[in-house]
């Protein structure tokens, strides 16, 4: 055979590969789609119908990166996300050419004064600088951004000693004094991986004046890594303070309360993400998790959604009294505000008995790291903007407001949101997802799958290789310091020398027609709604 014959054969083979193989493949797909009985669209429009599934699948990413405008996107808009990331990376909150905020939408605004406070007049404690690292951009090109990481001594923006918030000042042998208004909300080891928890612990420890809530998953060594102040959460499953039989272990509790790093305990009643009881698959109950939570390795955990130890305010208060007596440390409860009569009943009991929690954490109930059911996250409980002023009001009505600190949480990830919560009655603010973002969360919304692509909400060793603790812990510190600095900026604008002085009168609500109304109207409306129950 001569060379042309080879070329002809080669050509035929090439045509067969390029045309015949795809055609056969498409015919195969056509019949596969046509014959399946699951999807109507594929039976009626084989192959073409797949375009629907493809675009549906990649839709969230396309919207997040390309099509949503900067103020759209839930749970956090691109802009809110960037505000958190930039605070962590660059410790920077400056913007140019005006705000992107939608001023026509309804929302809360802070009333500024004509004569704000000067920097020197603020009651801030910047005497101990914090040694952190921030990024500095050298050159921002179209395809590359050159930046370097540099050490920096920054002002911590702590509260003065006399302004420190004291939890359990009148009730405990060891009250918890905190010199900052923002801390990390409950996120369990297990929900977040060891790298994320370690980075958070080290970052919060570095920033000082803040706290870390363990979540109900018990206290791990990763929480202790950076020596932050810790609030240990106790859920109905009693992880970390239980006997093998499942009952509350006073011995374990005493051991925990003797740890210097643990500053307070929080009983988690029904809460946004977990108004049902918790559930952990047996395969996720590793030896390490079993040891921390004091459960049996490899065995699926189905925990109750209410404590067995108490079922009404007065038995709960007795339990709290005993915890405080044994531990000597403040004890609080975490709740979602729903039925106001139940709350009022509890607060009335506080007044009558003289007992009660040292702090109440109010969750906005939107569910964070939480793997929870859609119906619970979306519709159960009042969002923070309604819940907080109502709780504050009930406590004042019964004259027990001074006995208890209010900690608010629920998407309060920037200084303005925190300040508004403080003005609505919060003494302190908890943040969960803002801190997740600062350790690398890209809002992929797969926390419940253990497949977090950035190694934050996963226990997978492989995925966690992406999360470098040393780099991320600086971002955590920068973020929390940046929040505190922002709070002082806002306080100064409102004519206050410390953000601890934010009151209802410092904010107003503006509706979408531009009418403004005071916070009290929310309370009136809530009371009215309760009467119609």
């Amino acid at each position: 055979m001569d060379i042309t014959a080879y070329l002809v054969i080669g050509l035929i083979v090439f045509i067969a590969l390029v045309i015949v193989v795809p055609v056969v493949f498409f015919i195969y797909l056509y019949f596969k789609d046509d014959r399946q009985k699951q999807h109507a669209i594929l039976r009626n429009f084989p192959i073409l119908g797949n375009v629907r599934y493809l675009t549906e699948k990649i839709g969230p990413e396309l919207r997040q990166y390309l099509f949503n405008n900067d103020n759209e996107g839930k749970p956090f808009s691109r802009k809110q996300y960037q505000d958190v990331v930039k605070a962590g990376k660059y410790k920077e909150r400056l913007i140019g050419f005006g705000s992107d905020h939608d001023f026509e939408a309804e929302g809360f605004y802070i009333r500024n004064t004509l004569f704000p406070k000067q920097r020197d007049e603020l009651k801030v404690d910047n005497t101990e600088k914090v040694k952190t690292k921030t990024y500095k951009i050298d050159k921002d090109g179209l395809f590359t951004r050159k930046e370097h990481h540099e050490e920096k001594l920054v002002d911590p923006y702590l509260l003065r000693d006399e302004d420190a918030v004291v939890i359990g000042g009148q009730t405990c042998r060891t009250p918890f004094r905190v010199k900052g208004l923002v801390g990390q909300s409950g996120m369990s080891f297990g929900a977040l991986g060891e790298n994320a928890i370690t980075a958070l612990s080290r970052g919060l420890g570095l920033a000082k004046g803040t706290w870390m809530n363990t979540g109900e998953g018990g206290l791990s060594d990763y929480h202790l890594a950076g020596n932050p102040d810790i609030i240990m959460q106790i859920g109905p499953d009693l992880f970390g303070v239980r006997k093998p039989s499942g009952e509350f272990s006073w011995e374990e509790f005493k051991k925990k309360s003797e740890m210097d790093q643990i500053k307070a305990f929080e009983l988690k009643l029904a809460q946004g993400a977990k108004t049902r009881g918790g559930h952990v698959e047996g395969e996720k109950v590793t030896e390490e998790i079993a040891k921390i939570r004091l459960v049996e390795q490899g065995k699926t955990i189905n925990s109750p959604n209410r404590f067995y130890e108490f079922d009404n305010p007065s038995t709960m208060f007795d339990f709290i009294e005993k915890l405080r007596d044994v531990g000597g440390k403040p004890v609080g409860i975490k709740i979602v505000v729903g039925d106001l009569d139940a709350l009022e009943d509890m607060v009335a009991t506080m007044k009558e008995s003289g007992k009660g929690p040292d702090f109440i954490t109010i969750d906005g109930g939107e569910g964070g790291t939480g793997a929870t059911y859609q119906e619970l996250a979306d519709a159960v409980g009042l969002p923070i903007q309604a819940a907080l002023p109502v709780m504050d009001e009930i406590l004042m009505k019964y004259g027990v407001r001074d006995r208890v600190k209010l900690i608010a949480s629920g998407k309060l990830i920037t200084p303005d949101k925190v300040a508004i919560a403080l003005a609505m009655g919060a003494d302190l603010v908890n943040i969960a997802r803002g801190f997740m973002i600062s350790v690398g969360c890209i809002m992929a919304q797969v926390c419940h799958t253990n497949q977090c692509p950035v190694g934050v909400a996963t226990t997978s060793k492989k995925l966690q290789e992406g999360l470098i603790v040393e780099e991320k812990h600086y971002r955590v510190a920068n973020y929390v310091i940046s929040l505190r600095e922002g709070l002082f900026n806002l306080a100064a604008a409102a004519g206050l020398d410390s953000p601890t002085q934010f009151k209802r009168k410092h904010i107003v609500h503006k509706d979408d027609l531009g009418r403004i109304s005071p916070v009290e109207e929310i309370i009136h409306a809530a009371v009215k709604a309760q009467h119609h129950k």
Partner: protein
Amino acid sequence: MRVAVIGTSEAVGELVIKELKEKDHQPVAIIKEKNRKPDMEKLGASDVVIDEGNRLEKAFSACDAVIYIAGSSPRAGESKSVLVDHEEVIDSMTEAKRQGIERFVLMSAIRANEKDNNGTTRIGDKHKPDEQLKQEGFVFTIIRPGHLTDKPGKGMIRMGKSLDIDSEISKEDVASVLVESLNNESAFNKIFDVTSGNVPIHEAFNH
């Protein structure tokens, strides 16, 4: 040594107070806003004097030395307005002299001796305090740091005359240099430009 510190509202001043305390001196902080008193006490000031009008007399009494921190950046730009508020410096010199204080350490800026080249007297006055310090017969030291940064101090510096105005130095290192110069005889009656470098601070004066 009891040392009066002027210019405490900025970070360098705060760091000087802290460093003085650590080196067993007794810093006297002079502040303009009374709200800053607790901060100064916390940083280690033995005494805090609020400078409302002319209170330097009280502040300087029984002091052995003055550290005057004139906050300014050499990068403020050529021919920009006065980098150092010379009137205040001169006032404090006069008071120090009256109270018999001999030691005077001034933090100026590398560009403080910029020549008057556009005819405005304000710029020409920049070096005036430096001149006066020499004339008044103080045991003086003038430290002219480069561009101040918030980086942590390394304890390693470069000292000389007419160093590059673009070079940087951390505020923490400048504070250490100011405090070190108090008792280091090699620093007496001299003017130094200081940037970050590779010589330990206590040795740098001898070079």
